[in-house]
């Protein structure tokens, strides 16, 4: 048996509260116009990721695979990758191919950047049968054993930006252009971010943007690369922006925001996901700062409507106790929002292994600090064990919380990803003042419904 150093406290993960890196990367790649994801590794991962994404978005989700077989795992995946690139180019005619790796490819130490250089050289010399097509290629290294789907998500953004945003040469004209790097949010959220950005009246790049490609309309014929997505040219312009707002605090040492700052001198504003009044205020004010324009009146009105709703519903939520779980940044934003309305997030959990998570959540809780269990590297069995003691009133999180809800007999209010046991998961609005309002209404109403159902006579007015 292999001898292992230290680490004797091994446990299994039971009902994981996280997903693997290439999934996050693929979503980003689907959010770039004309780009197709290609997973370098064995077939299964790509199929599972497709299936998982489809069950939430209910849209086709074409992801190619370089399809390792036994000999590939032994001799390396160069030939498979080359064949895959040829075939994907010929059949999908993409403008870009984003390559993301699996654990397997990473473990055998595939030097993908080198392969890509060789491939490009061969293609330039006419050595590849790609019908004269020459998509841009870029690569995100996404070994899942090093992180979760969120690591893959941020990694793919960095890969796209560093490949496409013209490095080094900062365009002399300082524009009022905004870069907005989004987090893993719903398609509806991305549409809301578009409305917000548009309202400032300056050019912008929103990356990634799968608002159309993963929540589009009907088709006349099969769309190989569904419409929508951040334009490659717009990613190319990110280096000339007046500032980057990066939503969610990326876990990595190096992320696209930092990259743009270091290589192109674009100032970076890290912001929490805009859920809750304070997070939104911070978000809007950075947009205002970058663009040099005041926050449009429209949003002031939304904000005021949200506060009005907070007041209308405060009685139903203040002092209530919630379980929240999911991606670190998403949970932090939810925690801040719940804190604003007086709900104690008695459990805030993430499946990611992140020592900074505790401090992050504590920082989000300005009003309450009592009775909060903050768990990183958690699975649903652990969450349930903690929840039993803490008597929560409701659960706010994705579909995998159904077991908690059944076991604890409390409502599950679905948000985040995946929501695959309801229609419209991709259309849940969480962000902005409007998104917050949506979540607030959902919470109040489901608490009221729970109460209504418990009261044997029922009650018909507030």
């Amino acid at each position, binding site marked *: *048996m*292999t*001898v292992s150093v230290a680490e004797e406290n091994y446990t299994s993960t039971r009902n994981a509260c996280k997903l693997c890196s290439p999934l996050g990367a693929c979503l980003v790649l689907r959010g770039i116009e004309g780009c197709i994801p290609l997973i370098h590794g064995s077939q*299964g991962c790509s199929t599972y990721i497709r299936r998982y994404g489809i069950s939430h978005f209910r849209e086709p989700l074409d992801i190619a695979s370089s399809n390792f077989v036994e000999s590939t795992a032994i001799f390396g995946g160069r030939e498979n990758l080359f064949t895959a690139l040829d075939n994907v180019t010929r059949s999908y005619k993409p403008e870009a191919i984003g390559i993301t790796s699996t*654990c397997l490819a990473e473990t055998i130490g595939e030097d993908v950047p080198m392969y890509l250089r060789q491939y490009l050289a061969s293609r330039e010399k006419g050595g590849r049968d790609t019908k004269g097509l020459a998509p841009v290629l870029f690569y995100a290294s996404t070994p899942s054993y090093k992180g979760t789907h969120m690591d893959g998500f941020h990694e793919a953004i960095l890969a796209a930006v560093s490949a496409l945003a013209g490095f080094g040469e900062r365009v002399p004209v300082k524009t009022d252009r905004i870069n907005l790097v989004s987090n893993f949010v719903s398609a509806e959220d991305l549409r809301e971010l578009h409305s917000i950005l548009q309202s400032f009246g300056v050019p912008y790049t929103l990356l990634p943007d799968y608002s159309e490609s993963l929540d589009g309309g009907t*088709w006349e014929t*099969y769309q190989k690369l569904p419409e929508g997505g951040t334009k490659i040219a717009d990613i190319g312009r990110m280096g000339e922006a007046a500032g980057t707002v990066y939503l969610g605090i990326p876990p990595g040492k190096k992320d696209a925001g930092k990259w743009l700052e270091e290589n192109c001198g674009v100032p970076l504003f890290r912001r929490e996901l805009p859920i809750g009044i304070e997070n939104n205020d911070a978000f809007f004010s950075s947009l205002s700062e970058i663009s040099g324009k005041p926050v449009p009146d429209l949003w002031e009105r939304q904000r005021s409507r949200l506060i009005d709703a907070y007041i209308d519903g405060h009685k139903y939520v203040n002092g209530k106790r919630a379980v929240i779980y999911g991606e670190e940044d998403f949970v932090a934003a939810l925690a801040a929002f719940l804190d604003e309305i007086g709900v104690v997030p008695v459990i805030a959990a993430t499946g990611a292994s992140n020592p900074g998570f505790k401090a992050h959540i504590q920082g989000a809780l300005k009003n309450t600090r009592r009775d909060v269990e903050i768990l990183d590297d958690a699975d649903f069995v652990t969450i349930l064990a903690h929840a039993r003691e803490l008597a929560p009133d409701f659960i706010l999180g994705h579909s995998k919380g159904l077991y908690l809800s059944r076991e604890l007999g409390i409502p599950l209010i679905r948000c985040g990803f995946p929501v695959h046991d309801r229609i419209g998961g991709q259309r849940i609005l969480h962000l902005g003042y409007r998104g917050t309002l949506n979540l607030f209404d959902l919470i109040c109403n489901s608490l009221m419904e729970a109460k209504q159902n418990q009261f044997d006579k029922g009650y018909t007015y507030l």
Partner: protein
Amino acid sequence: MVEVLAARKQQVLEKGKDVFNIECEKPSTAGSVSQRACVFCGSRVVLYPIADAVHLIHGPIGCAAYTWELRGSLSSGPELHRLSFSTDIREHEVIYGGEKKLYAALKELIGAYKPNAAFVYCTCIIGLIGDDVEAVCAKVEKEVGIPVIPVHSEGFKGTKKDGYKAACEAAFKLVGKDDITPVSKTSINILGEFNLAGETWIIKDYYKRMGVEVTACITGDGRVAEIGRAHRAKLNVVQCSGSMTYLAKMMEEKYGIPYIRVSYFGIEDMSKALYDVAEYFKDETILHNTQELVKSEVNALLPKLTEYRKDLEGKKAGVYVGGSFKAFSMVKALRHLGMETVVVGSQTGSPEDYEYLKEITNEGTIILDDTNPLELSGFILEKGADLLIGGVKERPIAYKMGIGFCDHNHERKEALAGYEGMLNFAREVHTSVTSPVWKYSPARIKAAEAAQAAEAAQAAEAAQAAEAAQAAEAAQAAEAARAGKEILV
């Protein structure tokens, strides 16, 4: 024209037009967006329904996370199978090996859930870092006294079919463990029935009414102890033959149990499945019971089907499922609804399977092995299908192309097996195909226009041909008249 990758040309054929033997049972082409999964997937779906065993997935988290509750297999008792256990290995173990973690995880899970067996699925990376999973399993088995069985399901080591084989090998290790519980003289095992949406219960009830005992269902609503005495049943009835024939063969070899292959989908196949068993036992009572059962079920079912058939007559369907046996039954079942299958394929068919598909389908039917979204969507439109039967990944393809869809996959919640399953199937097909929403679909509108144009062109052509024929006839008549005249003269 539907584009097919050069490397896949031999995996797609049109009946009546192309004459070659379909190429199959090979790994998916690199860079094609294959609809199929991996070896692990094959093993996982077969063993999953064993509800009193711990299923531990050894590897990084993805493989486990994506298959949590993937199958709709129900259990009448314990529900351990519905939980997702993983060693969730990290970088540290990738470097130093995952054996210690595996050992700890097994001890922890077996201690906490008191299962009757444990399966350890090896995923890609485990095959690579070379953990001695056999040794760890043997050690834990000795310590805890329940079977702890490694399943060699490294994703890259073949196709889903190889995963079936690995699962059969794992299940076979449980067979023969219990040699005391009495088993009837007319008893069978059901192999390859997974109790999706409770289908095993439907099938078991039929056999019970026939007077046949079911010793074990491997693996629907499965229990370790049942599989342990399966070796003493008199006949193995294999339903999902793609996945379980291998186990049947092993049991035949070691325990001398013969096997037959059946399908529980559709009226003919379901009835044949029951009659085949009855005939095997050559028992008057059983035969009589079977006749009665089939008669009463079919008589009750047919009038209800006729209702649905009224609306479905003449509609066309595409079928793309995992196993080809399922595809055969679907072609026949659709025929009962008045529907023709115009596109059909599977992820794992063998050459014989595709030959048989060729036999039972009409001229012009497209037959595909290991397809992808581009081909599938193209053929659906080209052949004018109104319905697609498939799994989750096929669903949005159908919907975007503006046609109905029926789930025939692991996770479905409607029972489709047996006579009542046929009725559910008909209802689901009917509900989807007759929904008024399709008329708003652009793909459908375009297809209708194209069909109309084709019809008009055909009519014009026919008119032209008729005219030409008339002219020719007239000319002929004139000629004949002339000839006649000549003769007369």
